[in-house]
């Protein structure tokens, strides 16, 4: 008992330390803004340590509920319950640790920025909100924190206030999330109307399955679509790369976007078979489209963003096929290697920006401007390549294990007889194939090949940027997850639960990855001429239509189609919708101004006309007055008598 109290307090401490960091950062005067760079990471370190301590200490199958009533309306309670269970115990250290590393990294990365205060405040606030999602045992509370992470994401994407692009990206991110959240909210309302509670304890442990659950779960899934950038709402994520790179690492790769997958796992019992099928299809479609898009990007961060979307799609598919555990595993591994990749990209950007300060209009994020950096940036290169290998799913890296378990689950799910589920399986194989291709392409262009002019003055960034990279990279190796590089069973499975395993699938996927690696090597490394031609052709394209002409190869062609769909149709639809909305709004305003208003004016006018009619008897002629008066009487007379 005594121990449990300690756990409660510790959980509270872990949750609230980032909030304290947020408040402190706000309250520290601008003059002392350097203080925040010390205070915030320290507080996060404390939070991280507590989380790791809890992770170690709390027994695996604990489900500890801390009841807090937030408010109540009549007999209905709105609780702020905190539940410490296997998922939260896994997520807490994950979130805090990556957050801490990003804090650390940001100290170096954000040097000289005049919005440091705001930046660290929002990082702290984000961490707090994210922990809130993780710990809440209440659908409403999850929604609240869900919105709050959206807000911090908004603030951090728009951190560079003077940049118009970042402002519009921030707005876009928030609104896309809001659209998803509206669905989430409807889901919440359905749950409320049927159960009058938001406590997941009660909702998830219902004795039977009700028909409303399909609707409710699909609506909640809408929230996931928004937050985890699933098809068709994923376009905000590439744009969100306008924010500082550490933010992209923390929020738009490792944690926030993964919150959707977490939520799916959290409320998994609520999902019915029908809704799960929708989830799986959406996830697979996202994974495929995003992978194709990633293959077509030149911006280093956008490649990573699309790859994130694609990986999130994988996770969602995993949940959809009923293997939430596999999704959680991939979420964990992905968090580390993707954070590492982003931070690595960040340190490349940082180094190149320092080196090319004098060069104008130099886009450091364009991989075509990069090359041969492996010698200049050895640490970055080393960590980057580990994380990239993990992303590509090369055996002996964590990504392989997690992706393998996802594919295995889909394999089992798709069954032995042919059905549409096989298509999904094929799609996932294609995705993991393409993943290797774009990962290889990215790594190759950045670190291999000839050293560019731009790379001449590049030096390694300071240690504070490199340490997080090393830590994250080390977490991307297989033994971080399990002892066996081909089998997921390890600490994770003991914590979360068993995962499907099949040697057949493992070997197929391993073989596929190797095949893909070879293909990629063949395309990008062996046939260097092709890369050159690609680069030469690229110089002529800054338009999408021209871009289409470039691509002769089927994959690239497909990728272009995907992007066109993305830009022209989905984004275009949103734009059209937005334009339509704005023009409707204008019509409405016009209506307001001329019809409704003028009807009021018309009434006034009518009153005036009536007035001038009654006045017209008043011409100043006394005899007419008398006539009208007497005539009035006579009219009365006839009116009554006849």
């Amino acid at each position, binding site marked *: 008992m005594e121990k449990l109290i300690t756990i409660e307090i510790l959980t509270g401490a872990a949750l609230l330390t980032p909030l304290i960091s947020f408040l402190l950062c706000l309250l520290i005067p601008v003059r002392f803004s350097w203080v925040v760079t010390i205070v915030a990471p320290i507080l996060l370190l404390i939070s991280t340590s507590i989380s790791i301590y809890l992770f170690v200490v709390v027994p695996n199958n604990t489900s500890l509920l801390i009841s807090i009533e937030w408010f109540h309306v009549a007999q209905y309670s709105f609780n702020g319950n905190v539940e410490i269970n296997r998922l939260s115990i896994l997520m807490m250290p994950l979130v805090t640790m990556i957050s801490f590393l990003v804090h650390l990294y940001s100290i170096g990365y954000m040097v000289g920025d005049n919005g440091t205060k705001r930046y660290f405040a929002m990082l702290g606030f984000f961490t707090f909100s994210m922990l809130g999602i993780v710990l809440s045992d209440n659908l409403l509370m999850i929604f609240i924190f869900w919105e709050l992470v959206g807000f911090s994401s908004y603030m951090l994407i728009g951190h560079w206030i003077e940049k118009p692009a970042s402002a519009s990206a921030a707005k876009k991110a928030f609104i896309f999330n809001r659209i998803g959240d509206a669905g989430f909210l409807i889901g919440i309302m359905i749950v409320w109307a049927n159960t009058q509670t938001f406590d997941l304890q009660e909702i998830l442990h219902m004795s039977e399955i009700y028909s409303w659950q399909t609707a409710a779960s699909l609506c909640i899934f809408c929230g996931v679509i928004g937050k985890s950038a699933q098809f068709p709402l994923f376009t905000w994520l590439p744009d969100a790369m306008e924010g500082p790179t550490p933010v992209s690492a923390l929020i738009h790769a490792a944690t926030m976007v993964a919150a959707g997958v977490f939520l799916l796992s959290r409320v998994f019992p609520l999902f019915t078979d029908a809704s799960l099928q929708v989830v799986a299809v959406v996830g697979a479609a996202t994974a495929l489209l995003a992978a194709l898009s990633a293959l077509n990007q030149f911006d280093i961060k956008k490649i990573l963003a699309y790859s994130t979307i694609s990986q999130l799609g994988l996770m969602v598919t995993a949940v959809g096929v009923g293997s939430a555990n596999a999704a959680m595993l991939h979420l964990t591994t992905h968090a580390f290697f993707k954070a590492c990749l982003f931070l690595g990209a960040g340190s490349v950007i940082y180094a190149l920006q320092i080196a090319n300060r004098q060069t104008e209009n130099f886009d450091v994020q364009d991989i075509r401007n990069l090359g041969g950096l492996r010698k200049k940036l050895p640490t970055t290169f080393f960590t980057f390549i580990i994380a990239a290998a993990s992303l590509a799913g090369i055996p002996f890296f964590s990504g392989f294990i997690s992706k393998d378990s996802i594919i295995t689950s889909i394999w089992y799910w798709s069954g032995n007889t042919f059905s549409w589920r096989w298509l999904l399986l094929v799609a996932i194989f294609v995705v993991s194939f393409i993943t290797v291709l774009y990962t290889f392409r990215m790594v190759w262009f950045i670190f291999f090949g000839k050293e560019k002019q731009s790379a001449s003055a590049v030096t390694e960034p300071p240690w504070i940027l490199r340490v997080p990279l090393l830590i994250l990279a080390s977490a991307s190796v297989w033994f971080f997850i399990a002892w066996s590089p081909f089998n997921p069973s390890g600490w994770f499975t003991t914590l979360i639960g068993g995962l499907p395993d099949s040697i057949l699938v493992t070997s197929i996927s391993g073989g596929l990855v190797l095949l893909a690696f070879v293909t990629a090597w063949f395309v990008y490394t062996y046939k260097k001429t092709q890369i050159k031609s690609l680069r030469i052709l690229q110089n002529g394209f800054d338009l999408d239509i021209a871009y289409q002409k470039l691509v002769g190869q089927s994959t690239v062609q497909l990728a272009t189609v995907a992007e066109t769909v993305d830009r022209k149709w989905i984004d275009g639809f949103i734009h059209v919708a937005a334009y339509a909305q704005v023009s409707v709004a204008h019509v409405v305003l016009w209506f307001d101004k001329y019809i409704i208003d003028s009807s009021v004016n018309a009434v*006034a006018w009518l*009153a*005036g006309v*009536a*007035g*001038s*009619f*009654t*006045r017209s*008897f*008043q011409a*100043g002629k*006394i005899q*007419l*007055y*008398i006539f*009208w*008066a*007497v*005539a*009035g*009487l006579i009219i*009365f*007379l006839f*009116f*009554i*008598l006849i």
Partner: protein
Amino acid sequence: METGLSETLELITKSILYILPEVILAAGIVTVILIGLATKNKSQNLIVWVTLLLFAASLIFTILNWSLYTSPVQLFAGMIRSDDFSALFKILFDVAGILTVLMSMTNDEIRETKFKSEYYALILSAVLGAHLLTMSMNFILVFLALELLSISSYVLAGFSTNKKGAEGSLKYFLFGSVASAIMLYGFSILFGLTGTLDFSSGDFVDRLLNNQTPLVFVAGLMTLAGFLYKIAAAPMHPWAPDVYEAAPMPVVAFLSVVPKLAGIAVLTKFTLAINLFGQSNFDWQIILSIVAILSITVGNFSALWQTNPKRMMAYSSIAQSGFLLIGVVCFSIQGIQFMLFYGSVYLLVNFAVFFGLQFFEKNNVNSIPSFSGWGRSHVMVSVVMFIGFIALAGIPPTAGFTAKLFIFTSLWSAYEQSGKDILAWLLVFGLLNTVVSLFYYLKIPYYSFIKTSEKIESPKKTNPENYLALVLVALVLLLFIRPDLLMGWLNRINFVL
């Protein structure tokens, strides 16, 4: 026959006590004229104070006379009747007289006229006419009192020293003469039908009941024409705007209150009789409702685009007649009580507004747009006028609202009892017109407070009459907060009509 004669004479001598206020006023007319002759009209103050004194005496005796009777008393062989109903009106007339005199004291046109004593004598005689009109129970006296009131008013309306004054006076005269002639014709027919001139007598009602022909209706309508002309209700209203525009401000204030209330008093008595206590074949309720609807609508809508404040007030007074008529339309004691309440409030409010208008007139503010900006330099008087206007419109927190509320309530209960659609329409029109009336009632406050103007002349300081207006407005506010002060009093009155 001989003994009867002496008894009659004795009764007459006794009756004189009951008409002491009227005697005072009548004697006052002569007194004022004589003072005027003696001082060659030079001593304005003496005349004014004597007139005030006379009105005050009349007022006091009217109140004191109340103790003389517990039930209505027939006087002068049924010519007049002293009762609570008329006593109340008489008080209102005397108050109006006092206020008119006070207003005249500072009016430039009246101060400059050569006929001060005549002016005040005419006011006295007009009030005397009003007194007699409310008391009279006989067509002869109705006719005489009405003419006394009218002829005084014709001359008063022309007291302006300009062209327009003469024109207004002429128009008033012509219209009034025709109206009273028509009324007289009605009287003559009613006399033929009933053989009596005493319209409160049982004979009058009985004989009409037994002889209900269309002619009764024609005669009644002709008679009403005269009364409607007095209260300036449609369709007998067209004279009002022209006359109001031409007349001096105190006269306008006087005309908008005293003849109107006197007319409504006699109209009430007459319609109660002609309606034969509800047994008439002709629905006088409908006639009066139509008149009320017409008056309210015509008055309000015509007032909308007026630029002359006096003219606007003329139309407003037409509309207010319509509202007063609603009280009569109900044909119930509550209706009449509420009408009295309405009338009292109307008197106070109207005088408050006219005090304000007179102040502005002195400062050459003669059209509504020229009120621009005055609200800011002359806050008190503008606020007083503003409260007056919202009271006329019937918005809380003024007794105007309470009065309208009461009037509509009695109308509603009349509707509930009779179920006549016309009453519901009257209610609807009344309410809608309340909105319409805001358009013009708020015009002057709108200009004076919200519009700005560069050229505001140097204010004439110390205007005692403005404080008087303030008192009136305060009374209006008080009557809103405690309407039972007046209503309680009205309730206690024994209304035998």
